[in-house]
């Protein structure tokens, strides 16, 4: 196993996919020539290696970028298109929701759209609310799209490879702030199955469900909690759609308690779905209210103290878990 940064792991996945399958191409704004020069960024060096035919820098046209991927996938290619920052996906929503997600269904199962869309998520680089806005809840509420959101380099590689070779449209959300974080990554065509969550830390007192960058906020909190003798089970969902309900429910059946943590805003966030599933299917075992730790219902402010305030903190997770286990 090589030690790679998160960004290198994504890059490695693209490299593996492109080298083994000519149908794979990447397109987006600056995926070839970028204003950044950093080997830790996902598409670094791919233009040099695969050339202009397969590494396509596009104009600033999010709808066309999505349409490019959809149409090309309909003819059997394996497009991997990038929408630079999460809030820009609003410009591609018609293409992704009314087309990528629906055209196969509309065809009565005759067509397929093996498309991958990469997105950069993340709060904490001071760019404000038009660059930072986690909208995974929208995508998860769109029948026909699969949605994955990795937290480790190995999962970033494995989920992306699974997405590229999945016969359906898959949205791959990348936590930008993790690009430079290193970890062990299996070599070659390493796949992580879409739809399988990962138990990061086993525990008995309380289940904490999270994903993406928030995983590290939770792990930070767990240090303190374990010192306090609270045994937390941490689940990294990895896939939001399809969701690994078995893993979620099995854990809650053992702990009887649930806290959900994400960086997106709370109201109508994906955490609500996790909570609702448990309140509907594991109510009998629940010993305490289901808590959600998430961002307040405001846009991401730019000023450092306010951006920090916006982002769910380990302290907030600690408080929520304590309250849930009755030690609040």
């Amino acid at each position, binding site marked *: 196993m090589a030690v790679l940064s998160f960004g290198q792991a994504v890059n490695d996945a693209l490299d593996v996919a492109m080298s083994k399958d000519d149908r794979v191409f990447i397109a987006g704004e600056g995926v070839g020539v970028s204003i950044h020069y950093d080997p830790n960024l996902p598409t670094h060096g791919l233009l040099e290696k695969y050339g202009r035919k397969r590494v396509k820098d596009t104009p600033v*046209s999010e709808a066309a970028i999505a349409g490019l991927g*959809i*149409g090309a996938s309909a003819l*059997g290619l394996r497009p991997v298109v990038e929408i630079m920052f999460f809030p820009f996906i609003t410009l591609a929503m018609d293409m992704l929701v009314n087309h990528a997600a629906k055209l196969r269904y*509309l065809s009565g199962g005759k067509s397929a759209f093996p498309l991958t869309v990469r997105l950069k998520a993340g709060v904490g680089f001071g760019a404000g609310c038009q660059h930072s806005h986690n909208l995974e809840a929208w995508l998860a509420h769109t029948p026909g799209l699969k949605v994955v959101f990795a937290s480790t380099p190995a999962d970033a590689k494995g989920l992306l490879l699974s997405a590229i070779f999945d016969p359906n449209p898959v949205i791959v959300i990348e936590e930008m702030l993790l690009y430079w974080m290193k970890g062990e990554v299996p070599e070659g065509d390493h796949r992580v199955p879409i739809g399988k969550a990962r138990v990061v830390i086993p525990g008995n007192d309380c289940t904490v469900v999270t994903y993406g960058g928030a995983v590290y906020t939770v792990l930070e909190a767990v240090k303190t909690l374990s010192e306090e003798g609270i045994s937390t089970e941490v689940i990294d969902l990895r896939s939001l759609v399809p969701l690994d309900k078995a893993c979620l429910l099995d854990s809650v059946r053992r702990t009887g308690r649930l806290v959900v943590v994400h960086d997106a805003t709370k109201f109508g966030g994906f955490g609500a779905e996790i909570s609702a599933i448990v309140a509907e299917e594991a109510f009998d075992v629940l010993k305490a209210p289901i808590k959600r730790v998430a961002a307040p219902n405001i846009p991401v402010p730019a000023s450092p103290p306010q951006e920090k305030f916006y982002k769910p903190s380990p302290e907030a997770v600690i408080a929520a878990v304590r309250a849930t286990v009755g030690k609040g």
Partner: protein
Amino acid sequence: MVSQQVDVGLIKAMYEEMLLVRKFEEKLIELSKEQGKLVGMQILAYGQEAVAVGIVKALEPDDVIVSNHRSHGHLLAKGADPKYLMAEIMGKATGVNKGKSGTLHMAVPEVNALMTTTIVGGGPPLAVGAAFAQQYQGTSNITVVFFGDGAAAEGSVHEAMNLAALWKLPVLFVCENNCWAGAQSFSEHCCLMDITQRAVGYGMPGELVDGNDVEKVFTLAKQMVSRCRNGQGPVLIEAKTYRMRGHGEHDHQHYVDKKELEAWARLDPVRCLKERMLTDGLVTEAELQVTDGQIDAKIDEAVQFASESPYPLPEEALQDLWVEDAVPQGYL
């Protein structure tokens, strides 16, 4: 620009296809009056048959078309079987899309009518993707996308034309200017004389054609299609035609000047072609009657097939979302 003679056999063939579209839709008009027989709004290409037939006749079977809400002409011209279209319009299990689409977004992959969208302006970006694949795979196939004068106002059309021009993709953009976008006339929703003026802004050719004259449409299409095939990049064709009926059958055209309707009725592409063939002695009344009979029979067969077909089972609605046979239990 438009010059060479179109061969007689071809003219007859195009006439028959136009007549098929016309009779298919006349049948829909009739059926739309029977409660619950057809599903959803009935949006007809009545009066625009020459555009669909003239353009598609210039294509090879492997060429792709992307259609819109006004799709009957495009699909039938590309070779879709009226039986399965009719069944789809009735929402039947035997429909070309198993009833999941209904009339508005029928796609017929078998004949490379690969994607149809009722999102106005949705087609061009999809066509750019299809054409990119054709170029990427090194084929000489092209993609044609049909859209309306109203669609030309959508941002997606701009993004698609810009990208197609930049990458010299084999896309033939066909704007069917039928003088209306819903209840807004062309001059009410656009300040241009012609949509072709947009072509300048993408550095691609923009060609106007009389959309009611199938020979002119075909001749121009032939030239432009080969241009696309030869890697010279995209082209915009604007076919001037007219929406002879309402936006859909539920629209009674209270906002349309009757004189305008009459004027265009005189230009009815199907009737005009028939008359021209008779005057020029390309066909006899007798031959035309045979053709009529054959097409009527096809339509009747389609209606009977569709009418006798069962509706899909309710729970079959859960199929066809994803390529996996079944969507993971955890999800549904």
